[in-house]
């Protein structure tokens, strides 16, 4: 089994296309980690904040509300945008796009209101406030926004593993069509072959993740040495991908407040995902033993892949806490195959009791065990070409 797995891994990981992919991902991580540096030299307008000039009185009033993509410039000659205040108008000079124009418009209105209010007697201000401002009391029972980041990670792993499952199934088809399986089975039992195929998908995924992670960590470390990520954090803040400006990676990571409970939830999600994907992979391998050509493989695997897509979209549509606690999502979180996406959804967005968790885990594990056992027999009976008439087993001689 070891020889089979290492051979298969070598074929998958050590080939010209894989090396191209590693090179590409390494380069991509480098570009991403230094995107602020690259953009500053190639397209500075995308990265550098626009300098804006206004008189000091105006800056004192609204300076703190300046959006992240603007920076105050005291010298009007050096500013990209100038706001000139005269007796009865505000003149804005500069090249502004629609979004910038909207921001400047809001700032000027704010400043104008403040300066007008200051000139009025208090009684009038109170009347105007009554007219202009409604007193709204919010009693909103809407859900807290669910943890989309976790769901994104889980679905990414889901699709990654699905594609590896397809690759493993294709490998079985290839071995069958090239008759290599007959020679392999003179050295390993069908059982070893069966389990090695299930393990190969996982090892491939882990190896690829490790390889790409190494590239990412390398560039991350380079960036830490370079400026501790200050530049890229600044760029993300300017593009409003971050609501707070962080001065280093450290600062950003500690702001995430990742505690033990979050880690446990992620681990539990991974367990459900793993059980579900193993079941899917098992089904793919079992279907593959009936396939005798690549054309047949495409015809059978296509609909299967579509089915998995349907499960994914179901998980997206049934993602409200009401559905996940009482509706279809609740029942799907106990259903084998479906539980790999619905239980993580529940874990990430609602509260799941320990007994519910144990029940769902037991259902998923027992289903997997039963399928593994039944699948073993099915695999043995159908692996060799033209074997429908007999049962193929590795026996002692």
């Amino acid at each position, binding site marked *: 089994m070891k*020889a089979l797995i290492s051979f298969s891994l070598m074929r998958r990981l050590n080939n010209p296309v894989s090396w191209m992919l590693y090179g590409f991902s390494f380069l991509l991580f480098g570009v991403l980690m230094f995107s602020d540096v690259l953009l500053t030299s190639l397209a500075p307008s995308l990265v550098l904040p626009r300098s804006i000039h206004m008189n000091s009185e105006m800056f004192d009033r609204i300076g703190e509300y300046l959006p992240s993509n603007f920076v105050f410039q005291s010298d009007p000659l050096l500013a990209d945008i100038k706001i000139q205040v005269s007796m009865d108008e505000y003149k804005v000079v500069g090249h502004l796009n629609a979004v910038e124009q909207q921001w400047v418009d809001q700032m000027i209105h704010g400043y104008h209101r403040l300066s007008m209010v200051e000139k009025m007697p208090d009684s009038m201000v109170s009347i105007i406030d009554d007219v202009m401002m409604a007193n709204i009391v919010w009693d909103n029972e809407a859900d807290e926004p669910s943890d989309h980041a976790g769901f994104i990670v889980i679905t990414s792993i889901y699709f990654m593993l699905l594609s590896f499952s397809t690759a493993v199934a294709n490998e079985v088809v290839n071995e069958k069509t090239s*008759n290599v399986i*007959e020679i392999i*089975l*003179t*050295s*390993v039992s069908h059982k070893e072959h069966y389990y090695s195929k299930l393990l190969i998908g996982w090892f491939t995924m882990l190896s690829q993740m490790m390889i790409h992670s190494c590239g990412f960590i390398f560039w991350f470390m380079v960036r830490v040495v370079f400026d501790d990520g200050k530049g890229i954090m600044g760029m993300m803040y300017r593009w409003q991908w971050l609501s707070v400006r962080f001065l280093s990676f450290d600062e950003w990571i500690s702001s995430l407040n990742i505690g033990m409970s979050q880690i446990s939830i992620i681990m539990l999600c991974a367990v459900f995902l793993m059980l579900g994907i193993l079941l899917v992979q098992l089904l793919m391998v079992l279907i593959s033993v009936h396939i005798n050509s690549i054309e047949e493989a495409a015809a059978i695997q296509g609909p299967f892949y579509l089915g998995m897509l349907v499960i994914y979209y179901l998980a997206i549509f049934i993602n409200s806490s009401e559905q996940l606690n009482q509706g279809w999502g609740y029942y799907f979180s106990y259903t084998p195959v479906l539980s790999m996406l619905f239980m993580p959804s529940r874990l990430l967005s609602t509260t799941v009791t320990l007994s519910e968790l144990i029940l769902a885990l037991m259902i998923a594990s027992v289903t997997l065990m039963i399928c593994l056992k039944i699948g073993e027999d099915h695999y043995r009976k159908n692996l*060799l070409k033209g074997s429908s008439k007999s049962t193929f087993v590795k026996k002692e*001689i």
Partner: protein
Amino acid sequence: MLHVESLTKLFAPQSGCQNVSFKCKKGEIHGILGRNGSGKTTLFRCLLGLIPYDEGVVRLVSSLPEIRQFGYLPEERSVISDLRVYQMIEFFASLKQMSQKEIRDERDFWLHKLECKHLMYKRLRECSKGNQQKVQLICSLIHRPDVLILDEPLTGLDVSNVQLFKQIISDYAHSDKIVLLSSHQYEEIEPLCDNLMVLNDSKVILQGKLSDIKRSHPTKTVSISEDAHMIYALQKGVIDIRQEGNTTKYICKAESDAINIALLALRCRDGRTIKVESLTLKDLVGEQP
């Protein structure tokens, strides 16, 4: 020694192999012959443990670990075409749990012996059919199994490679190993086989040492070249006539009948070739070319 007793594997009546028994000593080449679908491959698959048999016993006396006892060259081409030659050999050797050093030594030895060392770094899809067959042969015997099963090893080979394969097979058997061989090229394997077994419709119809079988068959043949008109067809004792190119082969009931025809032919020989001989393997199996 390989001892097979009453081995039966039936998919349907007359499909598979029935009641097959034979013994093979070390150093012997055992020919297993028969038409397509007669049960040869089923027999091999049963011996290799690829399929379970319904009845019978297979015993092998071997000092090797179980995984290395058998080597198999299947009838159909079984190569991973995108691999390089050395990768394919190393893969199958590693499945037999050989050490890296063993693999390297044996790989180089067999590549040299089969005159294909220059192919080592070539991809299998770039190799000719004959060269692919050589690589497959190396894969089947790199672990030096006690029993080497070759299913149609000579198919698709040119004359020089057929000779090379025959030499390799013969040398391998003489190194105290057992070779089970099936082929449709009866003329080619006849000089190789010590024992033979003929299967027909899943049953054994002929079995034993080749010399004994020939001796026990009184039937003789007379081959006369340039005899397009088969002029001796009505002579006494002629039981069958076969035309092979410009040569007519008269199969006679007894040796005396064959000699009579040969004497008649000698009288008007005119430079023709006249040959009296025992039945060849092909004649014994009764298979038409």
